């Protein structure tokens, strides 16, 4: 056993150190680059680190509390098309008059497989299992005592194939995701220590879904028309994200409805990292009170560490080849 573990470790280290073949890594699909998005996940597997992502908003409570979330996410490719990520979040909730609640949310991990990549159509799809691990966070900030499994489908599509008459629209890209959140238990029972009343709380199943519509200035400059704009502008991706959750079963009498936010913002794309900033506009009062804000620094580990942790752990990637151009 010890020997096999040592062998596997040696193999992993060797693969890590020696792998040095042609990689695309973060979300390149043909001539299209999909930046990492802030509210939803991008449709690729990659070696990347989002640290930190900081959001501030007011809750939908009456009176509203201020909520601050500081999170990080580390994503690692195991193979070229399969990756895992882990994402802890620290939350502080400050109701008017206090007292403040703070602590970690449940740890979330994602196991993602990028099963379809069609470069010539700038189209990509992935499937993932997102797991929020119950009892790993503080219940004072709303962390659940149960685990939630969310099978999720992701897609990305660039519009570089539009005809010349619509060339201005070619920099548009669309990403989307849809998932079904299944709690590990259907309900939880609590006893009121004062009255002795027994309360049963249902754990609904949720449909989670969202999209991003983005206009890539880098794509405009290098694939459509070079307007000789300043370099800073040529690296911007104006974006609108939206993310929603709708209870679909086991929610009778809970009073829980659809919640979500629409996030207009912009992402600046550098060679080694990107920076994103978005407003968070709640779609209804249950989703929040007033406009919040979210910002993120996102590092491209495959570019910062191209010969070590920026490579898949196992198998490297497909060998580089002489470029072949279609007929």
């Amino acid at each position, binding site marked *: 056993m010890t020997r096999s573990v040592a062998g596997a470790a040696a193999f992993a280290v060797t693969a890590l150190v020696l792998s040095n073949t042609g990689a*695309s890594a973060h979300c390149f699909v043909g001539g299209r680059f999909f930046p990492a998005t802030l509210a939803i996940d991008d449709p690729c597997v990659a070696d990347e680190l989002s640290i930190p992502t900081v959001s501030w908003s007011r809750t939908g409570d009456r009176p509203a509390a201020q909520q601050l979330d500081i999170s990080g996410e580390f994503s690692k490719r195991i193979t070229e098309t399969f990756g895992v990520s882990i994402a802890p979040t620290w939350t502080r909730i400050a109701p008017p008059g206090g007292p403040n609640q703070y602590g970690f949310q449940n740890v979330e991990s994602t196991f993602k497989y990028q099963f379809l990549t069609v470069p010539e159509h700038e189209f990509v799809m992935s499937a993932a299992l997102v797991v929020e691990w119950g009892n790993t966070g503080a219940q004072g900030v709303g962390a659940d005592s149960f685990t939630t499994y969310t099978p999720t489908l992701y897609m990305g599509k660039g519009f570089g194939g539009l005809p010349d008459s619509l060339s201005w629209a070619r920099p548009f890209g669309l990403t989307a995701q849809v998932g079904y959140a299944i709690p590990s238990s259907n309900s939880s029972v609590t006893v009121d220590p004062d009255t002795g009343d027994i309360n049963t709380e249902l754990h609904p199943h949720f449909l989670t879904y969202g999209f991003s519509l983005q206009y890539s200035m880098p794509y405009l400059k290098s694939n459509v028309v*070079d307007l000789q704009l300043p370099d800073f502008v040529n690296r911007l991706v104006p974006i609108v994200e939206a993310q929603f959750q709708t209870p679909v079963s086991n929610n009778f009498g809970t009073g829980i409805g659809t919640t979500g936010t629409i996030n207009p913002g912009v992402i600046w794309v550098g060679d*080694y*990292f990107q920076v994103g900033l978005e407003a968070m506009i709640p779609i209804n009062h249950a989703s929040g009170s007033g406009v919040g804000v979210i910002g993120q620094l996102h*590092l491209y580990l495959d570019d910062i560490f191209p*010969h*070590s942790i920026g490579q898949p752990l196992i198998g490297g990637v497909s060998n580089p080849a002489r*470029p072949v151009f279609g*007929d």
Partner: protein
Amino acid sequence: MRHFIRLATLFLVLTFGASAAVAHAFLDHASPRVGSTVSGSPSEVRLWFTQALEPRFSGAQLRSSGGAVLGSGVVDSADPKQLVIRVQGLKPGKYHVSWKVLSVDTHRTEGSFSFEVKP
């Protein structure tokens, strides 16, 4: 702004202890410019990239609007950040350039653009 970006990049690279980091090769600019119209035939199509390229695994192709291949590009031996396609006597019309490159740190990128030649 460029100084800030360079400083931020340096800070991040040093902070995270990267070995010699080289990013994906993006098309920085081209001549004729992406999406431009030029008067008369250029003698070459030249593409400048943000990173040095691996000559064996990088190339470009020039096609007419009808799809005929008019030239292939190679990495400029004098500057590995440039791809050049030698052309001669391009008639007025629209032309399409496709490129696929491998940067020296083995990241692949690709893209395409058009330009137009007028008399």
